[in-house]
């Protein structure tokens, strides 16, 4: 048991004071109201004299006032006055006894009516021993407060009082009435004795750390032992003796045996107490041995060592509180151990920037028990931070438990600062170089751009203006910055539109001209209006948006366009006008309607006539090509019956058959399918295909024309049985000015533009055209047109949203080009996708190019490694030729190439199952796979 005597002391003293005071008060009340039990506690016992009660009252007051360490002067005065009163009363009383005088103080207040039968002295007078005790008590208290070592004498007096009191008490227990044989020894009343004990204890505890009390209140083993032994030392002999006495009195045993029992009792009880205490001391010893290392490194030891080290040092308990700081620490940081102990160690003396990280590492170190190094900024007493290496390491006992953390701080400021500035310099240098580079690059581009680059803010004011803009518009950068765009380069009639556009962007974040190429007009400083091509990009900055425009002056281009249009007009009119006369005249003469000419003249006239016709066709074709390329070809689409159009075409071009002596033969029934198209343009396609077929057929041969309706499209074909298209010519067949094979001896008139125009027309009608040809056997041209569906006419919007599905999967059977040199893989892939698509296989790049020239494809599946090169080269060809065609790369290797970015899907052979391939194909073609059987 360890008492906290600092606070308990006052409680003990206070308790003693109150007990004494209350009992004294009760006794006085007993005297006042003549209540025997209050005066003597037990009937027949001695009563406490009024003066004794008064003295105890004064003692109580003294205890109450003097119970604090640092008593105020007033309280001290009251306390000591009370004690002086006690002393006065008792000295007078003792004097009465000694010299047999009566000062009249004995019955001053109350008269003792039941005169003691034990005393021969004045009734109501204090017993001499009581008076003596009070004298000792008050003198002892004075001595205890003295500054020199007289307090020991004071304490001795208390012990004398205690011995007297205990003796008096024992007298009661053993029924002894007279002792010492002294004539004026008078027994003290029981409660007087008790109050002496109580007040003695009270006075002793006013100074718990003085003299003899030191050992009693010590926290160490000595104190504990003393406290433990003192009470039994008093109680055991008394108890054992009392037992013996009672036993003899009751006749349980005789005196001799009683003595034996008493000795045995003492032996047993003391042995038990000694054993117990020995055990406590033994445990403490073991504990001390256990924490030997701790002892060695006790704060005292540390202090000795650490005060001699040049480092800042402190110790932290495993719980986290600082238990020690060295002198250097205090002088450096200005923090004493007390300051540090206000809270658990939390890096509060280090720079706030590093505390969070350091705390985390510290917690980790605490958990793992490992050394913890950190370079942190430590705050000096003058608030200056310097970099320190903080090293914290644990000290462990034999059980590997951490008993203490030792922390040292070494100043590494110079080194750290040098390193930091070096790092910063390097970093800044890098950043600067990067900024300079990119700025310089940007500036170079900005100012050397072949177009104007200008920027405006959200209010429409210029914030950027490059060199080119200066020449283009006539304002220098300095002049224009800050001016409004709408008041400078935008023509008056376009300003409102510009305002609306800006407002629209503010409101919605979208602009009709943003990120697009648009052609508008602008004005120069001179007021000259000129056409520009413009693209505007909004640039979102941190707090605002600017609009950057790239502007190209297209005055020259417009002039050239105008010239071209003029040229076209000249071609169309000025060439045709004379041709009209020539052709008309020759036609009339050749017809014979103008009279007979000689045979030779007729022959020449015929030549001239047919060439004039050819020339006029050529002019028409050139104009058509121009129209297609400039997007000027208009289509007047109407609903057409396929049967009608086929028969009409065959009839209208019967003259070709006649001329080349061939027969047009319609095969099978031509379905009355409804298609949507321009009648004239379709006839143009028929004209080209039929005339080609006629031209390239031997005399007397048939030319077969057929058509078939599919689920969502119709196929129309024209088959000749001519020489076929030579391999090397196949790729160019739909090109411009591609005339028949030069080795062919037969004269074939034609412009070489027909198939090119036909393909353009068919594609405009959302169809496609291709051919199948075998040298020596003939050629079959096939074109496919989507069936007219109600959807097309009723709601064009719907058609648009489903354009992919409708044009690719519903209307037509998807066409797949598979480029693969391994025949087995080719077969497998054909099996996988062939159930829902038409698969064309190519074995190498050359083959693939030809197939691409002949046919339209919806999907290309490419093996990259081919005998004649890499299929990467095909990707661009496909994207250029068939922009809608999807591409799957199905390769044995994984290849990284930017060209693969445009590819829709990349599959690696070894990692792709048949079903995965099929899924990808279906996904890209938009095929629903319910009706398709997947080959095993």
């Amino acid at each position, binding site marked *: 048991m360890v008492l906290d005597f600092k606070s308990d002391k006052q409680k003990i003293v206070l308790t003693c004071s109150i007990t004494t005071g209350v009992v004294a008060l009760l006794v006085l009340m007993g005297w006042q109201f003549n209540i025997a039990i209050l005066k003597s506690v037990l009937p027949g016992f001695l009563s406490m004299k009024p003066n004794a009660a008064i003295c105890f009252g004064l003692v109580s007051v003294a205890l109450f006032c003097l119970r604090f360490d640092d008593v105020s002067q007033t309280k001290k005065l009251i306390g000591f006055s009370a004690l002086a009163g006690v002393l006065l009363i008792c000295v007078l009383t003792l004097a009465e006894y000694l010299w047999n005088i009566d000062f009249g103080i004995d019955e001053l207040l109350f008269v003792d009516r039941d005169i003691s039968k034990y005393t021969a002295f004045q009734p109501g007078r204090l017993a001499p021993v009581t008076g003596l005790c009070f004298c000792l008590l008050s003198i002892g208290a004075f001595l205890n407060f003295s500054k020199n070592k007289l307090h020991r004498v004071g304490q001795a007096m208390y012990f004398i009082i205690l011995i007297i009191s205990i003796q008096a008490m024992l007298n009661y227990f053993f029924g002894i009435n007279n002792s010492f044989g002294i004539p004026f020894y008078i027994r003290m009343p029981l409660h007087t004795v008790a109050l002496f004990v109580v007040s003695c204890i009270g006075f002793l505890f006013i100074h718990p750390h003085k003299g003899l009390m030191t050992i009693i209140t010590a926290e160490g083993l000595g104190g504990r032992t003393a406290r433990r032994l003192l009470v039994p030392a008093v109680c055991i002999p008394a108890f054992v003796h009392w037992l013996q006495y009672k036993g003899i009195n009751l006749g349980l045993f005789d005196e001799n045996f009683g003595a034996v029992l008493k000795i045995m009792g003492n032996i047993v009880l003391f042995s038990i107490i000694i054993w117990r205490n020995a055990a406590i001391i033994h445990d403490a010893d073991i504990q001390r041995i256990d924490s030997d290392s701790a002892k060695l490194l006790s704060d005292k030891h540390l202090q000795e060592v650490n005060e001699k080290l040049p480092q800042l040092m402190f110790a932290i308990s495993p719980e986290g509180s600082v238990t020690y700081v060295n002198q250097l620490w205090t002088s450096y940081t200005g923090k004493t151990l007390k300051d540090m102990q206000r809270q658990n160690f939390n890096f509060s003396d280090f720079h706030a920037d590093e505390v969070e990280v350091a705390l985390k590492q510290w917690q980790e170190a605490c958990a793992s028990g490992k050394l913890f190094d950190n370079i942190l900024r430590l705050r000096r007493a003058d608030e200056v931070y310097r970099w320190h290496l903080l090293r914290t390491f644990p000290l462990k006992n034999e059980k590997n438990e951490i008993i203490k953390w030792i922390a040292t701080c070494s100043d590494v400021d110079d080194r750290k600062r040098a390193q930091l500035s070096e790092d910063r310099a390097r970093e800044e240098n890098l950043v600067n170089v990067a900024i300079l580079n990119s700025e310089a690059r940007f500036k170079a581009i900005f100012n050397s751009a072949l177009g104007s680059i200008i920027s405006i803010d959200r209010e429409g004011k210029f914030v950027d203006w490059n060199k080119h803009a200066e020449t283009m518009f006539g304002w220098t950068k300095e002049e224009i910055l800050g001016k409004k765009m709408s008041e400078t380069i935008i023509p008056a009639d376009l300003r409102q539109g510009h305002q609306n556009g800006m407002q629209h962007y503010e409101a919605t974040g979208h602009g009709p001209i943003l990120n697009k190429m648009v052609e508008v007009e602008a004005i120069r400083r001179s007021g000259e209006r000129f056409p520009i091509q413009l693209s505007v990009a909004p640039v979102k900055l941190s707090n605002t948006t600017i609009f950057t425009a790239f502007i190209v002056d297209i005055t020259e281009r417009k002039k050239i366009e105008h010239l071209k249009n003029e040229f076209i007009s000249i071609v169309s009119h000025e060439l045709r006008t004379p041709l*009209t006369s020539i052709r008309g005249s020759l036609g009339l003469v050749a017809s014979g309607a103008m009279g007979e000419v000689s045979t030779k003249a007729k022959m020449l006239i015929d030549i001239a006539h047919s060439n004039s016709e050819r020339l006029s066709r050529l002019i028409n074709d050139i104009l058509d090509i121009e129209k297609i390329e400039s997007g000027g070809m208009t289509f007047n689409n109407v609903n057409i019956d396929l049967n009608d159009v086929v028969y009409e075409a065959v009839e209208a071009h019967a003259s070709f058959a006649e001329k080349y002596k061939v027969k047009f033969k319609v095969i099978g029934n031509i379905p009355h399918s409804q298609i949507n198209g321009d009648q004239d343009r379709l006839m143009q396609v028929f004209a080209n295909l039929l005339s080609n077929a006629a031209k390239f057929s031997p005399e007397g041969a048939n030319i077969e024309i057929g058509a078939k309706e599919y689920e969502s499209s119709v196929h129309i074909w024209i088959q000749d049985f001519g020489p076929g298209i030579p391999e090397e010519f196949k790729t160019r067949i739909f090109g411009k000015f591609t005339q028949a094979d030069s080795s062919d001896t037969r004269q074939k008139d034609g412009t070489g533009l027909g198939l090119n125009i036909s393909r353009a027309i068919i594609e405009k009608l959302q169809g496609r055209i291709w051919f199948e040809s075998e040298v020596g056997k003939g050629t079959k041209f096939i074109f496919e047109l989507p069936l007219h569906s109600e959807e097309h006419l009723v709601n064009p919007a719907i058609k648009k949203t489903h354009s992919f599905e409708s044009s690719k999967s519903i209307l037509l059977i998807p066409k797949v080009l598979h480029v693969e040199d391994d025949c087995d893989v080719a077969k497998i892939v054909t099996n996988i996708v062939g159930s829902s698509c038409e698969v064309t296989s190519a074995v190498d790049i050359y083959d693939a190019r030809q197939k691409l020239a002949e046919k339209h494809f919806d999907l290309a599946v490419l093996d990259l490694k081919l005998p004649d090169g890499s299929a990467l080269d095909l990707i661009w060809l496909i994207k250029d030729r068939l922009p809608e065609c999807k591409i799957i790369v199905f390769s044995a290797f994984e290849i990284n190439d930017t060209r693969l970015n445009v590819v829709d899907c990349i599959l690696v052979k070894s990692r792709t199952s048949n079903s995965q391939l099929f899924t990808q194909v279906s996904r890209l073609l938009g095929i629903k796979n319910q009706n398709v059987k997947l080959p095993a």
Partner: protein
Amino acid sequence: MNIKKLKKIMYVEDEIDIQIVAKLALEDIAGFEVEICSSGMEALLKVASINPDLILLDAMMPGMDGPTTLKELRNLEVSRNIPVIFLTAKVQGPDVEKFKSYGALDVLSKPFDPLSLGKSILALWNKIP
């Protein structure tokens, strides 16, 4: 079907060569009666006296061009209802639509086939309701 028989055609054309060829083709081959005017102005002056069933009009002529001539013809009481067909080298898509919008019956292109020109005109004539 036009119940009236097409007999007399007035042809407005500045090129003399074409005038001759067309006249031969339409008279000798097709059997119509053809009166020639060499300019739009001449056509306006003569249309009352000629009183044709149909007018064949060139588009690009010096002075008054075809479309202007057509407009002026429509302003005259005598020629207001006479059908007009353009015979022109300018047969780009937008032009055809433009000519039709001026009130022309149709557009035939140059160079023409002299043997079938009459048939083409008659076919258009017969389509007039």
